């Protein structure tokens, strides 16, 4: 049974057992516009919660990817190299990296879907 958590910087992590699938939220995808490139770490790299692990670029903007959780990268989504627009088509299905969580406790600092939706509503109000 998987569950999805969100960060304040609009990344999600969908957790299944000890595996996390990290990507950017629908909200982030819409704000960015047409994605033209995804910069991501390689298999074997480590990511640290709260630290940058790559970037998503559109024509006129770039957004750093901040890891919601720490762990070792077991796979990066190669489909995004040839077709970064998959993120625009379905951001939730098209995760960017798959990690082995090193500290599942970190999940408690993240938002669930309901809290995240409320957070996005306040972002829009600004």
């Amino acid at each position: 049974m998987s569950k999805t958590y969100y960060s304040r910087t609009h990344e999600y992590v969908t957790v299944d057992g000890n595996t996390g699938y990290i990507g950017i939220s629908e909200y982030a995808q819409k704000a960015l516009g047409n994605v033209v490139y995804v910069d991501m770490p390689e298999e074997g790299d480590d990511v640290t919660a709260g630290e940058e692990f790559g970037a998503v670029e559109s024509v006129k903007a770039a957004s750093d990817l901040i890891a919601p959780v720490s762990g070792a990268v077991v796979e990066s989504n190669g489909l995004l190299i040839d077709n970064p627009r998959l993120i625009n088509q379905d951001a939730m299905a098209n995760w960017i990296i798959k990690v082995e969580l090193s500290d599942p406790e970190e999940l408690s600092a993240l938002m669930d879907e309901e809290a995240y939706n409320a957070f996005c509503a306040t972002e829009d109000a600004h």
Partner: protein
Amino acid sequence: MNKEYYGKLIYELSRHGRRGASLPDNATPDALAAIPSALLRMNAPGLPEVDEPAVVRHYTNMSANNFGVDTGFYPLGSCTMKYNPKINEEIAGYSSFADLHPLQPASTVQGALEAYWTLQKALSEIGGMSEFTLNPFAGAHGELTGLMVIRAYHESRGDSKRVKVIVPDSAHGTNPASAAVAGLKVVEVKSFPDGTVDIEALRPLLDDTVAAMMMTNPNTAGMFEHGVKEIAEMVHEAGALMYYDGANLNPMLGIARPGDMGFDVMHINLHKTFSTPHGGGGPGSGPVGVRKGLECFLPEPRVCRRDDGTFAISDDSGESLGSISATLGNFGVQLRALAYIMSLGADGLKMAGPLATLNANYVKESLRDLYLLPLEGVCKHEFVFDGLRDKSTGVTTLDVAKRLLDFGFHAPTIYFPLLFHESLMIEPTETESRETLDAFIDVMREIAKEAVENPEVVKSAPHSTPVSRPDDTAAALNPVVTYDDLKSSES
């Protein structure tokens, strides 16, 4: 122009066996055998083969697809697109300057060194600084050099914990980028709605880890930072230095000097304030000035004047930050700037700032009923509209900018500064006449009218340019950056 016939790449004109230049023959024996074949290139590079007339026609036709200061008005904010005087071009082309090797003995380049020294002194006077280096190649290079000066200064006092640079959130993108290249951490300070620095927000940021504060004055919204002296005092109190980004120096000519505002280090963009041509993106020149006491940290090589009136090059100052260029910089650009300063003189320079500021305010006051003016008050050399006043038409700042091209004007700077959503930043320099400004104002008013009556014509602009709006997304998704890429993508 017939685009089908003339709109080709130079490679598409290439025919094997043609050539466009002749070379002298020094009549010495063939020595190719001296190079082992393993070190030789296997295949020819694959340059185009074209005759001289074809090269001239090709590039002449290409120039017709370009807009320049000599063809029309550039209301481009933060870029100071003033007239580029022709005498400057003539002088830069003199063989007595153009044919000097950068490593010639100083005794054989006294005229060149005197030109460098004279410009350096003039900029020191205009900036209110003690000394300048002309070596940096561009404004961003100047910023980097200036920040290195600041780090060298702190290090010379054994103060190694100053790793931060404070930059207003309204700053040019180069400021934080230069700080990062110089190994410094960027801390943003908030601006008030008018883009001026929020002094109360600055206060808690100042401690003994701050190396410098970078400011542009007037700021990127064209407003004068009237609190600059107080800011400088606070920054100095904290042991940090003040850096002046000279991108907006033009309106201050004859009015106020950065040194007198409390700045310690500054750069000047010769291609903005001092009339040297932008050349489609370069070469520029970004001299860096420092106040008294910081001269020893300037980069090598340096030019100095000896007591006997002769000029020399020094590169032996122990405290210098090092070298940021192999030579004394873009000398050809420096000559042009010196000729400009001599032409204007003290009497002309002091009018350049006020006339630029007059032009900006004149345009602002003539359009504010139709375009949204977010900042009240007198602007300096530039100002920002937040798009059209009437937001119901769906016509954006980008559309207005593109429609201007149809009327023979360059677009203003758009979507910068980031303070407003629909920024349209206009800087008419002092070399634009009232008639040109009136024509621009008429067109801007016409576009505002079109936005209401016929928005489609604005949204799909431009209509009369050599090409229409390009597909930027396709370009970024699948980069085609060489002729070889193009051939494989078209096949």
